[in-house]
């Protein structure tokens, strides 16, 4: 499209005459009417009036104007409504610019009228400069599938999957075990209602198995993920089950034929990392932990060579002992990571004797004992009958909240122990339960469980034993603590000791992280914003829920799963809508330095066939950090282009404060700093008139070239204000811009400009007071430095 000269309509709206009272509006408008590209410049009475809109329509249709600069203070409704209304008669919604003179502090008390008029003139020239360069833009629509990949069929994955199938989305559930259910399937009961978790799991499984949209991939792992949100290709590796899922109906005839009895207990080779118990079983057995899918599974490594008993007796011919591993590629729009947790290896906490003494068990093993006891089954460990246990101790925070092990709180162990103690006391009131703890953390209504346990006479000791020893004579576990209330040592002998161990990310987490290129936090859990967008990972289209994100109880895992599912819907609608404010790379000037590829906080940049960086628009969150960091300044967010900003910088007339006073251009992050600057003006704070600010998508979007430009045009100082470093909405924009300040320093020194003229600030959204005092001290420093040598 050939560029034609812009035809700008400048409409100044001044309801109540507040601007007119402070400024010589008529003169301003008359002057601007003669400016380049201005076709109309008028003071309007009511932008909503039919007469005005009619005239506007006529102008647009006649081609007299092709873009609008709105000057004045417009409501959010007007800013949304007017472009929508005018787009009906052909004005692209991106051909509007809004210039609010008030927010720049023009109406603050105590300014002399000449200064007000001069500053208004500068602001309007800057607004015009940008308006001239506006381009019509259209949103993009990328094709997308309606399928979602869920990694992990535990409680979070199952709930998310069931809900998404209800919404008509195709769901691929990938699970590394032979059956669904995850850790929750191992629990006897869960709090606060103390009901059987299998009930809630079965509810989801029933929904999923009834839906034609759900597909289970058990014994499977994700090998790689390619593509982009809306269109990922996930390569799934499936280990052989040795039983054909479509044929096996779970009749169990094979169980009688199988000659291999595997004992209950810990799986050999796994005990160091997975302290939970597998039940006694045959080499061929139902899926585990839940018998879903119904097909059996063969633990082939335990089969005698040549034995084919199960295959021979199977009435449906489902057993296939020569099944090979397979690989599938699934096309999905989004990925939900619900890979869950594993217990911390308690043997590492040597002082508590886990795996040294049989009567010291993990809390997860206690769940299995409680479950077995309740169900009257022979139990996972027949020698342990809870009924015979008279003195039962619980040690909390084993591994958790310990600098030597896990510095974080695993968040559920207190409530889990309270639940276990309550179940034991209710089953056997004669049993004595002792809980050794640092703090009891029973948030919210879990406190009821704590009270219930105390009412049942559970003894709580706010102290942790230093070590546990076995008395070989009595076979009891001896431990000694100081009662902090009595300041007296207490010695006790226990029949059973339960270690409330911490949670760590599931064993396969690093593999998943690698396959998804998904950052992990310092504890190994998947990184998240945790606060404002807890479900979001740092990779667009990939959402993390449940304990893969952080330790949480079952109910929170389910909530987080639904949140993740809801957010993922955006990429499961058959198309992904992209706002046109995405980055564009000028490949004719790109020298392929790859900084954008490396530093994009969301890894949105890839390479095209000629090795030029190309943003994956579905992944891009449009923060503009690429625009800020490109050393050549050739990446631009559309509608916030470097050219537009440079034109505004160029239009900044440095003389509006006179000769003596310094003038400053401030780039304010639109998330926090922009709002607090407006807030400072609205509160009538003493905002010095020397500043003019521009709103940027992120402090990280400010390119060094713009700063150097500003200083070379004689602007005395440049302020870049972003969020505090650990609070950036785009992960690290405010860090990146400061990281680049070294380069900027060199550049400015070569230009004989003091690098101290550039200032960075990290501000929070309500830091208006801090902002104002910063402006004053900054001005003081600039005055000491004297005028910019380029100021003529």
């Amino acid at each position, binding site marked *: 499209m050939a560029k034609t000269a812009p035809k700008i309509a400048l409409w100044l709206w001044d309801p109540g005459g507040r601007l007119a009272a402070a400024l010589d509006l008529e003169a301003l408008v008359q002057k601007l009417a003669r400016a380049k590209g201005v076709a109309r410049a008028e003071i309007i009475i009511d932008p909503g009036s039919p007469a005005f809109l009619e005239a506007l329509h006529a102008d647009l249709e006649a081609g007299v104007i092709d873009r609008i600069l709105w000057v004045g203070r417009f409501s959010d409704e007007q800013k949304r409504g007017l472009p929508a209304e005018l787009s009906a008669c052909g004005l692209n919604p991106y051909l509007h610019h809004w210039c609010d003179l008030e927010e720049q502090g023009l109406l603050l008390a105590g300014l002399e009228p000449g200064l007000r008029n001069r500053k208004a003139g500068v602001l309007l020239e800057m607004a015009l400069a940008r308006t001239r360069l506006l381009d019509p833009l259209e949103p993009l629509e990328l094709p997308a599938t309606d399928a979602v990949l869920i990694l992990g069929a535990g409680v979070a994955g199952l709930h998310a999957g069931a809900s998404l199938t209800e919404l008509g989305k195709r769901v691929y559930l990938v699970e590394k075990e032979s059956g669904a259910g995850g850790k929750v399937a191992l629990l006897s009961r869960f709090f606060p209602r103390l009901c059987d978790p299998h009930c809630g799991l079965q509810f989801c499984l029933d929904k999923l198995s009834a839906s034609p949209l759900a597909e289970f991939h058990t014994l499977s792992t994700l090998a790689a993920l390619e593509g982009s949100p809306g269109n990922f290709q996930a390569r799934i590796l499936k280990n052989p089950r040795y039983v054909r899922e479509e044929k096996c109906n779970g009749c169990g005839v094979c169980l009688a034929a199988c000659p291999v009895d595997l004992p209950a207990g810990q799986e050999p080779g796994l005990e160091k990392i997975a302290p939970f118990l597998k039940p006694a079983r045959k080499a061929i057995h139902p899926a585990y932990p839940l018998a879903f899918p119904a097909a059996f599974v063969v633990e082939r490594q335990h089969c005698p060579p040549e034995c084919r008993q199960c295959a021979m007796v199977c009435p449906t011919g489902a057993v296939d002992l020569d099944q090979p591993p397979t690989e599938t590629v699934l096309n999905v729009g989004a990925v939900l990571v619900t890979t869950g947790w594993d217990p911390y290896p308690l043997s590492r906490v040597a002082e508590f004797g886990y795996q040294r003494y049989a009567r010291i068990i993990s809390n997860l093993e206690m769940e299995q004992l409680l479950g077995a006891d309740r169900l009257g089954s022979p139990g996972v460990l027949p020698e342990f009958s809870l009924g015979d246990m008279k003195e039962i101790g619980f040690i909390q925070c084993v591994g958790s909240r310990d600098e030597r092990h896990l510095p974080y709180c695993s968040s559920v162990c207190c409530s889990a122990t309270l639940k276990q103690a309550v179940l034991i006391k209710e089953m056997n009131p004669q049993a004595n339960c002792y809980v050794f703890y640092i703090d009891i953390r029973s948030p919210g209504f879990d406190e009821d469980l704590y*009270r219930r346990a105390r009412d049942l006479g559970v003894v709580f000791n706010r102290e942790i034993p230093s070590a546990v020893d076995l008395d070989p004579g009595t076979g009891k576990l001896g431990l000694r603590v100081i009662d902090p*209330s009595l300041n*007296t040592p207490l010695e006790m002998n226990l029949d059973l000791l339960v270690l409330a161990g911490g949670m760590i990310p599931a064993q396969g987490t690093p593999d998943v992280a690698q396959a998804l290129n998904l950052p992990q936090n310092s504890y190994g859990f998947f990184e998240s914003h945790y606060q404002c967008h807890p479900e979001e990972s740092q990779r667009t289209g990939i959402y993390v829920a449940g304990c893969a994100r952080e330790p949480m109880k079952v109910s929170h895992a389910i909530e987080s799963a639904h949140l993740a599912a809801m957010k993922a819907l955006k990429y499961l609608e058959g198309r992904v809508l992209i706002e046109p404010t995405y980055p564009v790379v000028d490949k004719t000037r790109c020298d392929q330095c790859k900084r954008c590829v490396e530093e994009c906080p969301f890894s949105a940049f890839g390479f095209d066939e000629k090795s030029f960086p190309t943003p994956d628009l579905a992944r891009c969150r449009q923060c503009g950090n690429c625009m800020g960091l490109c050393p050549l300044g050739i990446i631009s967010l559309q509608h916030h282009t470097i050219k537009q900003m440079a034109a505004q910088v160029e239009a900044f007339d440095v003389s509006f404060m006179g000769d003596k006073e310094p003038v400053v251009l401030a780039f304010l992050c639109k998330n926090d700093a922009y709002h607090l600057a407006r807030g400072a003006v609205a509160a009538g704070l003493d905002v010095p008139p020397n500043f003019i600010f521009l709103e940027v998508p992120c402090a990280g979007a400010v390119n060094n070239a713009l700063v150097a430009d500003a200083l070379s045009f004689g602007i005395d100082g440049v302020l870049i204000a972003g969020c505090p470093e650990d609070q950036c909405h785009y992960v690290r924009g405010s860090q990146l811009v400061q990281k680049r300040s070294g380069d900027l320093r060199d550049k400015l020194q070569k230009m004989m400009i003091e690098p101290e003229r550039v200032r960075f600030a990290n501000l929070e959204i309500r830091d208006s007071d801090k902002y104002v005092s910063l402006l004053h001290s900054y001005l003081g420093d600039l005055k000491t430095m004297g005028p910019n040598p380029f100021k003529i």
Partner: protein
Amino acid sequence: MTQNFPPEPSLSARLAAASLAVSRCFQCRKCSGGCPLTFAMDLLPDQVIRLAFLGQEEQVLGCRAIWVCSSCETCTTRCPNGIDIAGVIDWLKEEAGKQGKTASQPLVAAFHHYFLESIRKAGGRLPEARMLRRYGLFKLWRQPDLGELAGNLKLGLRLFKKGRLRLAGPEPLKNRAEIDEIFKQAEFKWQGK
């Protein structure tokens, strides 16, 4: 001093049976923080509760703290777990009396006893003269101090002259039977000498 565990649940159970359950305590120690008499106590109120929960009967009945308690009930009022701490201490006083374990504070214990006994005898109101006589004789027997006795008699005479001390007992309450029933239910008994 090392306690022997397991704790003896019987004391805790007896308290619970008297609607004075202590197992809810989570050792916030607010009771001790607000108690105005801790300066004179050998055990703090929270320690009394903890020892009672752990069944350390000897220690808790033999302590001085339960006799120092003036039943102001600040602890009970402020306990976040609704434990009637002052009530527990009162129960412990009675229990100590029944078991004759008042050696730590015999005079306070005796005052406590003669006060209640006098009320019981008089059918619900306190016959001051009788109480003072009984307690005075006990004290004279335990700690003969003729000077103090002379001083007290003088004070008694002055009070009597001003009409502040009545020799005749007060009238019993209208429903004396109820008072008797209360004392019966509390199994009022005294072994302290």
